[in-house]
């Protein structure tokens, strides 16, 4: 993978909880293809899943007929995930999850998002909420090529 290469892939699903599993499967496949370590994949899967659940709950107020778009942009140094919805102006930036020492249902999603990502940004563009999540990649952790497994490279065959 050339250091300037950007892998751009995206998925758009209806804002119904049943489709969240598609986003998780998409993330797993994509990040495996670009040799992301398993623990980073799990973190990003959780973080994006929680952010999308929140879109359904808060931006769309459980209207399951809308849509959610999740885009990926990966360079050698970071993975950027952008989540877009056309719901009510609704940023989770100002919100905090619950104090973790308090035992009650709910209030954990934001913690999972913050665990997965180093930088969280929000923009309202026209009628679209755009949540931008950035995960930095430690160079050393990106090269655990397993023996036996077929090597998959973005520039293969070029």
């Amino acid at each position, binding site marked *: 993978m050339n250091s300037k290469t950007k892998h751009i892939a995206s998925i758009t699903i209806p804002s119904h909880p049943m489709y969240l599993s598609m986003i998780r499967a998409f993330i797993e496949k994509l990040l495996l293809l670009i040799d992301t370590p398993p623990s980073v994949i799990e973190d990003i899967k959780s973080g994006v899943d929680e952010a999308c659940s929140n879109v359904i709950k808060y931006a769309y107020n459980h209207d399951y007929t809308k849509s959610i778009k999740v885009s990926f942009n990966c360079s050698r140094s970071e993975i950027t995930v952008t989540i877009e919805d056309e719901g009510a102006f609704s940023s989770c930036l100002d919100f905090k999850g619950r104090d973790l020492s308090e035992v*009650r249902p709910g209030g954990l999603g934001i913690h*999972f998002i913050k665990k997965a990502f180093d930088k969280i940004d929000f923009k309202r563009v026209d009628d679209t909420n755009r949540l931008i999540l950035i995960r930095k990649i430690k160079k050393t952790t990106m090269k655990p090529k397993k023996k036996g497994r077929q090597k998959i490279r973005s520039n293969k065959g070029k």
Partner: protein
Amino acid sequence: MKITTEDIPKGKLIMISGEIDMHTSPALRDVLMKLTKKKVTPIIVDLLEVSYMDSSAIATFVEALKNMMSYKGSLRLCNLSQRVSEIFTFAKLNKIFEIYKTREDALKNC
């Protein structure tokens, strides 16, 4: 997600497989609410086949635990994968729940 329940000498065993997320956790909640309403104890939840768990799954277990506290019931989780175990630790709930390594361990005194 698939849920299977089994009678045990005392209480109930619940086996879950697949992914617990915003879509599937309501079905898990239904099962747990029915049992806690009947003050069943212990409830043993085998998570061996759970491949993914989100915050709504955690919320569901916390809610069940709170219900069970009212009748001093025992909620026991077992067979947590490394990832699921990490999630409970991250949420600072690993000390709040009774967590067992194997189903055999969880079934002791049932």
